[in-house]
């Protein structure tokens, strides 16, 4: 856990943050329940986003809900919906605003995305070649965002867009945050041997100095093919520290990963506390921490304000830096179905095989065993205790090359035709709890 130490003053600041947050976390953990939620996200009648208005000037916290931009007071007591300043678009995601500077978000469409930048008086649209994400404001009015393989920076003075290449040690960079006008901290995804780059395995925070055009690693989290560690939703706090959510899990585990709140105080990253469930930072203000938490309905995101005293209140639906999941991703819509021409080369197609309308048999496999005798012992045990001993047999690779590897054996129990295989496996594991960790559904 830790990390580069730059100065005693910075360490002291980090310790203060850590202690304060620990007290707050302990209070949350011991007494305060997470607020109850409304059943669903009601539709809100949007107002007009007028130039020069408070919403156009970046007052309040901006969130996205459906096709609207929602402005929430810092204390979470009031909220109002608006037609997006960029007009009706595709799927809106990742919004950021700054007082007297403006609001920026991504208009996600099938194919190239558009970054919408609304200053108090004008609206600018920057079309990217592909996926754009996580726009953020600098104190001087620049807007940075990620396109995965690089960061992009828009200048309000001439509307130009510059490109910042990611560090050579990384594969992608996202969630940039301006720590100062000339300094960006971003999450950098780093390669891990034995994994492919499709899903996230290891993230660290890196700092980019615009003046020197150089990257420096700020954290040194580690991971391997099984144990992963990623970073999400870094947010600049009023005290100058960076708060972020670290998520850790095991690739093969069937349990929820752990969520943790961390703080990076100019060099020292410290864990503040464990989080009770899946939650991401939306904002940090003098009023406290604004969280995005999954709602009761699949795909709903709620805004929950955690006050300085640890009390929590539900502010309604809305998402800030989290991804919309209720609406289909426009980049992942269905392709032509089976039977459509695929472009395969002639001569390499399979010869016609008659379709079968009957269901293929399924079985519960118990294994693997290094000897035939060991598999037979288990098979006998199963035969004695199951209603139909005839469904039990022992298999090996020679007869069942797609179910079991060479050199080992397994006991299998046929699942009756028409039975629910998941229910059958659950029943089997209840009957034989000692075999639960070595039983799977296979097609023998």
């Amino acid at each position, binding site marked *: 856990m830790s990390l580069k130490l730059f100065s005693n003053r910075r360490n002291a600041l980090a310790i203060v943050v850590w202690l304060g947050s620990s007290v707050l976390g302990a209070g949350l953990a011991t007494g305060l329940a997470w607020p109850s939620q409304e059943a669903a996200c009601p539709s809100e009648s949007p107002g007009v986003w007028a130039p020069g208005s408070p919403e156009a000037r970046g007052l309040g916290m901006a969130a996205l809900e459906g096709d609207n931009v929602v402005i929430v007071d810092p204390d979470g007591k009031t909220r109002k919906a608006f037609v997006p300043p960029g007009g009706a678009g595709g799927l809106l995601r990742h919004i950021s605003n700054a007082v007297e500077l403006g609001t920026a978000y991504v208009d996600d469409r099938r194919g190239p995305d558009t970054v919408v930048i609304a200053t108090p008086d004008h609206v600018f649209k920057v079309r990217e070649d592909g996926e754009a994400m996580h726009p953020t404001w600098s104190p001087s009015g620049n807007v940075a965002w990620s396109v995965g393989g690089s960061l992009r920076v828009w200048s309000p003075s001439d509307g130009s867009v510059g490109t910042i290449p990611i560090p050579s040690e990384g594969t992608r960079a996202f969630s940039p945050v301006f720590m100062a006008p000339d300094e960006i901290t971003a999450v950098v995804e780093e390669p891990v041997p034995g994994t492919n780059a499709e899903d996230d395995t290891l993230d660290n925070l890196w700092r980019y100095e615009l003046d020197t055009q150089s990257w420096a690693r700020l954290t040194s989290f580690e991971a391997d093919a099984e144990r992963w560690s990623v970073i999400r939703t870094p947010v600049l706090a009023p005290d100058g520290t960076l708060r972020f959510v670290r998520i850790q899990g095991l690739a093969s585990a069937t349990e929820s990963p752990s969520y943790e709140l961390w703080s990076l105080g100019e060099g020292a990253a410290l864990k503040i506390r464990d989080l009770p469930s899946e939650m991401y930072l939306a904002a940090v203000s003098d009023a406290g921490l604004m969280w995005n938490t999954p709602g009761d309905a699949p795909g709903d995101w709620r805004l929950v304000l955690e006050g300085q005293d640890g009390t929590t209140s539900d502010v309604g639906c809305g998402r800030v830096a989290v991804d919309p999941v209720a609406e289909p991703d426009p980049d992942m819509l269905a392709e032509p179905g089976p039977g459509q021409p695929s472009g395969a080369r002639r001569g390499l197609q399979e010869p016609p095989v008659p379709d079968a309308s009957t269901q293929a048999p399924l079985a519960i496999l118990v294994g693997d065993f290094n000897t035939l005798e060991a598999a037979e012992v288990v098979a006998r045990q199963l035969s004695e205790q199951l209603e139909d001993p005839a469904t039990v047999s022992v298999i090996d690779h020679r007869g069942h090359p*797609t179910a079991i590897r060479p050199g080992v054996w397994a006991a299998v129990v046929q699942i009756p035709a028409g039975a629910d295989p998941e229910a059958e496996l659950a029943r089997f594991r209840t009957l034989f709890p000692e075999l639960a960790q070595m039983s799977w559904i296979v097609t023998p």
Partner: protein
Amino acid sequence: MGSPSDRTRWLGWLLATALTVAVVSGLVAYPLAARASHMYGWVHDHSSAGIPPRPQGLSGLIATFGQHCNDRANDARSYWPSQSARNVSGYIYYHPYIGRNVGYNIRSHIEAAHKNGAVDYGVYGYNCRLISGSTKYSTHAFGAAIDTNSYRNPMGQSYWNGIGANGINYYRYIPDVWRGGYPGHNFYWGLNFSTRPDPMHFQYVTGY
């Protein structure tokens, strides 16, 4: 029968004929027997259980496969060539909802066609992880996706490299088995993701 020399000639002819028939029969029968030995009688299961309805969007995904990283998401398995490394076979795990389709239709299809060499490493199934840079869980975290021939077909590559572990180019044979074309097993191909093509990726859900 004639003279003893005629009889000898006749016996010689008979022996030569029998030997020829035996050799020819052996040459024909051996490969047929070899092909049929381990997958004899296999045909696709294109019933609604073999190729069940493919859900749409997060709601459909959860309704069909459950929440991400749930304890059923890796309850089914099959044995694949070149799984973890080239010519190093291993198991992959996935949700029982696609158990027949992956384990019986697709895996057996490749095995029965004697095209295990078309599979190249790595082949991955269940994996409890977030999508890169996103707060969305990967379809692998639901047991609803398989990656195959990953190292020749990384995310971001806009074409399919069909060279298998044996060095032969099978073109789109592997994607055709997983998705459309013949026979069509209804997996959605990540190559069609419009901004981040992912040719190694096949998932049993659309719109997520």
